[in-house]
């Protein structure tokens, strides 16, 4: 069992999920019922990405407007260096397409698949709503609006079967009839925006994200109050109990608890710097290695949380290169197949004698850490 598999020991599969194609049917289609609904597990290249690929770093990808199958709003169009009209989207779980477009119309899910849990759980009806609620125009309108907001986000790669990404898991905003039925109560509470922990997934500047913000809600939206109000009204409609809210908060806090583990002092001969090399007590190899100022927050999800203020040195192993094992690298070394993220100008990190720093390394962004300890820099022994 690999470390990636181990970290997938997860009961409450939520938040970021999975995919499959079921194009042609909408949630409101009469033929789309829970009795006939099914989602196939991912396969082929999608499955390979989910199971085998290291995290592919999120970047903003641009495509010619003329290649987009859909109406790109004028204000979403930019000019490339050679004067070509293009539309640019962050290929990330927190990214969003221009309003009116689904994520897969303007972006590729390959990177998103590597940023989210890789297991498949077929969405199922977790709550039995009376489908007649869809006859309420106000309800249907708000439900459709929220669903469309989610279809346009990176979350759609794993949670909107209609976008055809090849992988839908956990919940599906294209589930039959009342699509929120694919959520349990505590899951609805988690995504409602009631709890600030969702911010640890990262927040792109709305100006970089076609006006969509996720400061206040789990899913990026142009109207946080409207989205939050919909989910809260859903919880009220279901008569959610305090226990549901308590569980939502517990799960969210648990999901990010690794961000708050206090470092220990490095312990020779297991962790720290030995003979100039960074060592950790784990046969597993690392894809991100950091030296942080002592009081720096723990690095989190890219692209917004992975180099917190106080990062002195950040080295990332390229996706096509082998990760680095304990004892293989010195602080400041940039071996082939790696990219120094901090300092961004490529200059060597500057460590001061007698100052306490923190070593942090992880197999692949936020999965789990291999080293999280402090050391006092001594130029004569550490270099």
């Amino acid at each position, binding site marked *: *069992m690999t*470390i990636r*598999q*181990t*970290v*997938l*020991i*997860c*009961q*409450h*599969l939520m938040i970021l999920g999975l995919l499959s194609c079921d194009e042609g049917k909408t949630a409101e289609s009469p033929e789309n019922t829970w009795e006939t609904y099914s989602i196939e597990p991912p396969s082929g290249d999608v499955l390979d990405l989910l199971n085998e690929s290291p995290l592919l770093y999120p970047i903003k990808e641009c495509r010619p407007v003329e290649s987009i199958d859909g109406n790109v709003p004028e204000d979403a169009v930019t000019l490339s260096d050679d004067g070509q009209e293009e539309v640019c989207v962050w290929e990330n779980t927190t990214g969003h397409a221009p309003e009116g477009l689904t994520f897969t119309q303007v972006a590729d899910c390959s990177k998103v698949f590597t940023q989210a849990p*890789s*297991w*498949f759980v077929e969405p199922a009806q977790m709550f039995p709503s009376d489908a007649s609620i869809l006859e309420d125009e106000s309800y249907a309108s708000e439900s459709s609006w929220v669903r469309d907001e989610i279809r346009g986000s990176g979350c759609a790669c794993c949670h909107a079967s209609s976008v055809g990404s090849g992988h839908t898991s956990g919940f599906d905003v294209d589930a039959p009839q009342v699509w929120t039925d694919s959520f349990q109560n505590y899951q609805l509470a988690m995504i409602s925006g009631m709890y600030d922990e969702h911010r640890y997934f990262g927040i792109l500047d709305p100006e970089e994200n076609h006006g969509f913000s996720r400061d206040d809600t789990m899913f990026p939206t142009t109207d946080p109050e409207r989205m939050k109000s919909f989910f809260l009204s859903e919880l009220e409609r279901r008569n959610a109990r305090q226990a549901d809210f308590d569980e939502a908060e*517990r*799960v969210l*806090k*648990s*999901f*990010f*608890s*690794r961000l708050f*583990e*206090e*470092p*220990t002092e490095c*312990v020779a*001969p*297991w*962790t720290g710097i030995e003979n100039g090399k960074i*060592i950790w*007590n*784990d*046969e597993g190899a690392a894809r991100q290695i950091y030296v942080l100022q002592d009081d720096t927050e723990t690095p989190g999800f890219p692209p917004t949380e992975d180099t917190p203020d106080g990062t002195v040195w950040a080295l990332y192993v390229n996706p096509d290169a082998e990760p680095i094992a*304990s*004892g293989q690298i010195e602080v400041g070394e940039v071996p082939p197949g790696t990219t120094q993220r901090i300092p961004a100008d490529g200059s060597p990190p500057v460590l001061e004698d007698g100052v306490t720093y923190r070593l942090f390394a992880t197999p692949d962004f*936020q*999965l*789990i850490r291999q080293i*999280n*300890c402090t050391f006092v820099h001594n130029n004569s022994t550490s270099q």
Partner: protein
Amino acid sequence: MKTVAFLSLILGCAASENDTSGTSEVNNDATDASNITGEDDVDNAEDSAPPESEDNAVCSEDYSLCGDIEVPSGFSGSTRSLAIVLYSSVPPAGPPDGIIAEIESPDLNAGGTFPVRVLPALFNGDYYVWVNLYMEGGGEWMPVNGIDYTGSTSEPISFDGSPVSFDDISLSLATDW
């Protein structure tokens, strides 16, 4: 030197309740690994097995983690892997806070115990020790109900660099996954 530095997990074969070997007696009686000397059991142990005193000696070392996993009496089937991990709250709701050990195809017997002796366990804070035993035909990403087994400590245990022991963890068939 490097070998010593890496996590050292002493993997004794789990012994059944009816096993009369010294290993069995020690393991089944062990509730506080740090106090066990195992001296009475060494003579009965097979030549190839590590002496119990060596197994348990680590339990008094700083940064050690010791305890036993109890295998249910009705246990049968082929094991695929055993994952021993740490969570800050249970049931698990995401990636573990730490990985203690991952063991391929552990040799477990019905009614027996599986000793966990780890040095070092370099964690800081309070965590539950959580165990997932994956069986052939069971899950890969999470336990499958009625096939795989799970278990955990009833309370979180504190890691602060001093020797840590945990009460026996009883495995039971996975449910509610």
